[in-house]
């Protein structure tokens, strides 16, 4: 979706000052778009500080999405070294907690090696594959 790409790159130029290089941002955008299109769910990735309790803050962010029931949020806090996957009520039926845990495990392994973008992209692919077609 070009509208998403454009507004990400023009409305929020701060993203380009972040820890991600431009190719990484493009890969992340492509992974999000593919996950959304193939599953019909809304995937999003948050990278930043999470307040304590971490799980509660991640769920609050998840609640800010337009349709939380059909949304999946990956909240990554590099400082606290914590990763939270939040699935809405409908998304949870398609992505069981066990599969989410498996994705979280592989993402955490990538993050432990310092690869934020790669871990997020592979985690998105894994979750989207688990959710299957819409």
């Amino acid at each position: 979706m070009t509208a998403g790409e454009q507004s990400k790159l023009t409305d929020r130029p701060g993203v380009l000052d972040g820890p991600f290089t431009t190719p990484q941002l493009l890969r992340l955008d492509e992974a999000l778009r593919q996950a959304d299109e193939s599953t019909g769910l809304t995937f999003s990735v948050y990278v930043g500080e999470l307040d304590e309790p971490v799980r509660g803050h991640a769920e609050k962010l998840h609640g800010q999405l337009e349709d939380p029931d059909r949304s999946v949020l990956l909240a990554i806090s590099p400082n606290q070294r914590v990763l939270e996957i939040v699935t809405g009520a409908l998304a949870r039926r398609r992505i069981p907690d066990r599969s989410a845990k498996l994705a979280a495990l592989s993402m955490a392994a990538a993050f432990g090696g310092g690869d934020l973008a790669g871990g997020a992209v592979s985690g998105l692919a894994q979750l989207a594959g688990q959710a299957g077609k819409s």
Partner: protein
Amino acid sequence: MSIQQTVLVFAGIPIAVVAVVYALVYATSGRRNSKRYRPGRPFTFAPVWFLSAPERLNGSVSSKPALTSAGHHAELPAGSTPAGPLLAQAADAPANQPAPHGETGGASDSW
């Protein structure tokens, strides 16, 4: 060859090559990797939130107060959102935001 020439050829040239390679490596990778996240080092960047369609965010991050205040049908054509999927989704979306949602699932991990 005199002593000076010998030293220049067998010590000076290798040192010059080493210095050039060293300078090249640090001039390129030193700058590029400074932003990279490394576990254990402080992460000082502003929080970012990636969505394939940023219009789907209700909260304060998005510059779209129109979506939170009133129904979708009245507000969406007025806004400059050209996205087709958003309109298709908005047709069955509840008008009052934030929508009440059920329990959430998922997983946690740390590294």
